[in-house]
């Protein structure tokens, strides 16, 4: 359960292959509840099931059953959970591992920023609603045309996902024991495949591709040199680096055109 943060778009980017709520925000002001619920359940079921992969991966990485379930119950944001488990399995220190998971989780803050006005929850409800703010609930909620549908979509997606994610985590964690050597089953490939599947739809423009390329380079070059977990954190610097490089390039180009009136960022209007 985790994917992209396409904050700049009206509609969040589609998770790969997951049922994406239709282009709701357009036009029809009163969406039937049944349509909202169908969207929400579709996303919830498809993604909730990948909790199984998490359960298997986590236990396969040597994390206990109780700890695996605690992660799904308390962290409830898939990419962070996979990242934490991977970093711990590789022998990273607990705080470096947690830092990587946290940085991945910060994108949810940007969803919250967009959802708070749409949902308009009372302050007393917000601490509870916050736990369910993840990629999928944001995708469904932001696609709704009005507050009523938004709240319904958020609640149904959140509830479906939370239940399924935790149940399938438990099933995966229990199943991992029965599977024996998870490596022989190729289950250690599930983690990187999840990350790749989340990453792929984000690579829309050259800025994103440059960032991804630079991040891979930074991580691979520093992997043998720095303590486990640190290379991934360091690679986050690819994001500001690409922004700075492009800002500089665009300024130079603006001067070359002598009026500097051109668009500051060619990507900015491309959605």
């Amino acid at each position: 359960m985790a994917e992209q943060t396409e904050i700049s778009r009206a509609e969040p980017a589609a998770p790969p292959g997951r049922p994406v709520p239709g282009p709701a925000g357009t036009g029809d002001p009163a969406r039937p509840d049944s349509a909202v619920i169908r969207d929400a359940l579709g996303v919830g079921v498809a993604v909730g099931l990948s909790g199984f992969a998490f359960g298997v991966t986590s236990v396969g990485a040597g994390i206990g059953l109780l700890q695996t379930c605690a992660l799904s119950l308390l962290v409830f944001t898939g990419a962070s959970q996979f990242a934490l488990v991977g970093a711990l399995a590789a022998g990273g220190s607990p705080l470096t591992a947690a830092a990587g998971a946290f940085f991945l989780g910060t994108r949810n803050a940007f969803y919250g920023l967009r959802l708070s006005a749409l949902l308009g929850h009372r302050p007393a409800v917000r601490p509870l609603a916050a736990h369910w703010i993840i990629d999928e609930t944001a995708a469904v909620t932001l696609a709704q045309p009005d507050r009523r549908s938004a709240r319904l979509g958020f609640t149904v997606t959140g509830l479906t996902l939370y239940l399924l994610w935790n149940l399938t985590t438990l099933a995966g964690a229990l199943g991992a024991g029965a599977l024996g050597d998870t490596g022989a089953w190729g289950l250690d490939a599930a983690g990187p495949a999840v990350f790749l599947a989340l990453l792929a739809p984000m690579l829309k423009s050259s800025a994103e591709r440059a960032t991804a390329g630079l991040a891979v380079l930074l991580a691979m070059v520093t992997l043998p040199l720095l303590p486990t977990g640190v290379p991934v954190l360091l690679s986050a610097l690819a994001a500001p680096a690409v922004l700075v490089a492009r800002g500089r390039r665009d300024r130079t180009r603006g001067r070359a055109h002598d009026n500097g009136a051109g668009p500051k960022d060619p990507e900015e209007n491309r959605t």
Partner: protein
Amino acid sequence: MNTWIAIGATAVGCYLAKYLGLLAPSGLLELPLVKRLATLLPVALLAALTAQQTFGDGSHLLLDAKAAGVAAAAVALVLRAPFLLVIAVAVAVTAGVRALGG
């Protein structure tokens, strides 16, 4: 114990990120720099994590069956396969290559 510390820190950190987003003034998102960093930061982290978990073995680089599995997943993604199928392909190809002694 170390694992519990990591779990606790991650749970608290991730929850605070979610909650603070709900509380923050909505104008924050309008800042172009915030918006662009918010888009690029997960791209960088996911790319690095994919590479590290595919080729990393502790502090060594390693090319094994997993790389074949992840490459197959990439092909599945290009063919627009559904999320769960992409993961299944990665797992199956990795297991297959390993069974063949890769």
